[in-house]
């Protein structure tokens, strides 16, 4: 697992208010179906900004950006956040 994926999962664990452990979720699982609320997704976004020292532009301020760990990774990638090489 990349450092970016680990950071995403840690943020979800701390701010996602999910009823299940993030460790049980695959990268493609639907986070909203897993219990992520829209409001919690906002907290996840703000915590990701803190973790990666970035700012999500308005174009990414929507529910679909946070619908899965893979979607979050893609959004971060569009902002220049990429995994460190092994």
């Amino acid at each position, binding site marked *: 697992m990349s450092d970016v994926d680990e950071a995403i999962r840690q943020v979800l664990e701390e701010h996602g*208010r999910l009823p299940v452990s993030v460790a049980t979720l695959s990268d493609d699982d639907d986070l909203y179906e897993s219990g992520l609320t*829209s*409001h*919690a997704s*906002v*907290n996840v*976004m*703000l915590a990701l*900004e803190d973790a990666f020292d970035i700012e999500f532009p*308005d174009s990414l*301020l*929507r*529910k*679909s950006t946070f619908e899965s760990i893979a979607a979050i990774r893609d959004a971060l990638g569009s902002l220049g956040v990429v995994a460190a090489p092994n």
Partner: protein
Amino acid sequence: MKILVGIDVQPIDEVEASIREFGARYSHRLFTDHELESCAKNPLTAACGLAARFAAKEAVLKILDTRETVPSWKTIEVRRTEGGRPEIVLCGEASELARRQGVEQMSLSLSHGGGIATAVVVAQVAERQIGTSR
């Protein structure tokens, strides 16, 4: 003409916690200047008001067909009429989505109690467009 209903609830303590942790970064991402000014008039109930407005935005999103595009939260605004009734004002992509789906009018009711804020939105939708709505 068809009627669609959207409803949502929002725990007020979650909004309070977000304001404590993220401050203005949180507020300005979700709420318009008008919404923030409306709620700031009474600091004791500010979180209640913001929680109700967030519930209203989510209730609107339940009426709109968002399979292809999900409007950002700030394109759905809660305003007060001169008579004090809350109303929904759409702009940008939310307005365009509603127009395409035949939403002609929306009515909003807000309430809070027991630590929960809630919003109900009733929409009139042109019948020929109903097939594109959830």
